[in-house]
């Protein structure tokens, strides 16, 4: 099997007037299908830039990037948009759900930008994705009627609906409390282990990184460490170990 993500000597320079900021200074790594990877790094380490490049929102100044075997170098904006649509599912820190729009319609959104999908197929696939995040019974609810954790699960369903080769999560637990964070990580682990989804999570909490199989650490635009995690912590057990917060 070929790599989902293959990066070779990726550089990214930002030019602000006379000043050139080198955000990435030659990053190389590969992600194999079925891997669950976390990217760690302090702010300014270049992890957001790396995430943008992996997510095809940005292009590298130099170096080769193959997403699922496709070189994105010569692609224009529109081609990148449809590549994102087919290959990548995004999960954001702030959920980014459309307000006053039902969970189901939020999940349907990526399918709207794909040709040739009937309304009924769209609905079926969105319901299916909502079932995967155990929110099928809340499909009519609007974001303001859902808790933070539920909103993030809707966002994950939205990332799943297109059956992408890669799920990219940018600090998915950043806005959530510990308990809800563990719930979300449990879901992500299940998606990875039970459904063999390839998942890449950006975080700055070592706590979260412990749930993944491999951790990339960035510092100052370079890959500092690329470590396999020999004993992956189970998010389910972690969730069980913290006391239930129903006493107030």
């Amino acid at each position, binding site marked *: 099997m070929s790599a989902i993500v293959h990066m070779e000597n990726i550089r990214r320079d930002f030019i602000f007037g006379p000043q050139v900021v080198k955000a990435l200074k030659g990053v190389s790594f590969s992600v194999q299908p079925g891997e669950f990877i976390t990217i760690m790094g302090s702010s300014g380490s270049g992890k957001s830039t790396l995430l943008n490049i992996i997510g095809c929102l*940005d292009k590298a100044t130099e170096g080769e990037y193959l997403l699922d075997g496709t070189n994105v170098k010569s692609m224009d904006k529109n081609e990148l*948009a449809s590549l*994102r649509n087919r290959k990548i599912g995004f999960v954001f820190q702030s959920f980014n759900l459309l307000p006053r*729009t039902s969970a189901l319609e939020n999940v349907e959104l990526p399918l709207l*930008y794909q040709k040739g999908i009937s309304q009924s197929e769209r609905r079926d696939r969105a319901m299916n994705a909502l079932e995967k995040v155990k929110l099928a019974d809340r499909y009519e609810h609007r974001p303001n009627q859902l808790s933070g954790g539920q909103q993030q699960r809707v966002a994950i369903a939205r990332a799943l609906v297109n059956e992408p080769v890669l799920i990219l999560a940018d600090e998915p637990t950043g806005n959530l409390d510990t308990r809800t964070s563990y719930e979300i990580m449990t879901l992500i682990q299940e998606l990875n282990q039970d459904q063999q989804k390839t998942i890449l999570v950006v975080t700055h909490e070592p706590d979260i990184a412990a749930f993944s199989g491999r951790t990339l650490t960035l510092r100052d635009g370079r890959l500092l460490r690329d470590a396999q995690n020999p004993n992956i912590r189970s998010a389910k057990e972690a969730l069980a170990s913290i006391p239930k917060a129903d006493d107030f």
Partner: protein
Amino acid sequence: MSFINLLKIALRALRRNKLRAFLTMLGIIIGVGAVITMMSIGEGSKKSIESTFSSMGTNMITIRPYSNIPMPGGVRMGSSNIQTLTLNDVEKIGEEVKNISALSPGLASGGQAIRGSKNWPTSIQGVGPDYLSIRKLEIASGSNFNEEHIKSFAKVCVIGQTVVKNLFEAGENPVGQIIRFGKIPFQVIGVLAAKGQNTFGQDQDDIIVAPYTTIMKRISATIYLQNIYVSAVSEDLSNLVTDDIIRTMRASHKLRTGQANDFDVRTQAELISNMSSTSNMMTTLLTAVAAISLVIGGIGIMNIMYVSVTERTREIGLRMSIGAKGRDILLQFLTEAIIISITGGLIGVLLGVTASWFVSRFLNWPTIISESSMVISFFVCVFTGVFFGYYPAIKAASLDPIDALRYE
């Protein structure tokens, strides 16, 4: 993205802010409504002026005595006192001018019409038999006088409805009755059909028509005429006929080159075009003012669309990150703007039609709503929506997804 999905997304976005969408629409509604109302008022008054003239006979040409040459002492004379038109002129015109369908001398005399104990102040028109056809007057009962009556200075007349009303009892048949005009008895041989008032408020039924010879000889005791009425074969030919008349009249009056005309020739077409151009100018002016409000409505759309784009920057970023192309975003915002302008336009058309109806119903102004004014203003407002919605939409489409997602 399919058209239906675009519509759905745009409608949902507008529903999120119903009041704002409506207020934005209001600019367009008022603009379109105003344009349609103003155009209908303009059209209506133009039509009413035209119909007044055509009821007077659009191809009528009137010749009146006129002089710029001051009389001794510097006094200028009123046209009825200038003695230049004669029956000879009528004869010459009849012989030499082509393309005329009717010709009549004319002179009027004011006085009291009397019958028994009733009387009515009016004037009597001394004219030829052609006069009725020139003025588009119709006989309701009885008959017109003829050449025999002219030759014999017959004391016969044809009277209008106002005269009938004032001299006769209701239901009485005036035909064959005798009335007096001043001291002269006239036999009524015909009654004219009612014509009502013209736009200037003149009663067109307050009229007594009699052979000109009778008036010249028995009432006015003159050999001069006050008018000569000519009907051109068609309205288009009236200018040509006018030129011929001027030539003939100058020859008949033996005027030398350079000498001013001692008569004045006027066509109705001239008057109509003057009046129409005045009312056209008013229509244009009113429509222009209304059109400005349409432009302001368009700017309102643009303003709100810019606000909306800024407000929804994160949404745009999200849509782009999950695969929306710039074109999809552009179309989404453009569709919103067009929905606002089309809906506003439709409501505006309704408003305009209703307002015109109210104007004609309660102000009694004539209004005519032309389909063209509705179609034009509707398309103008759709164009307004596209035009003013385009720039905000372009702005939305050109956003960078990374920046847009981070926008606070």
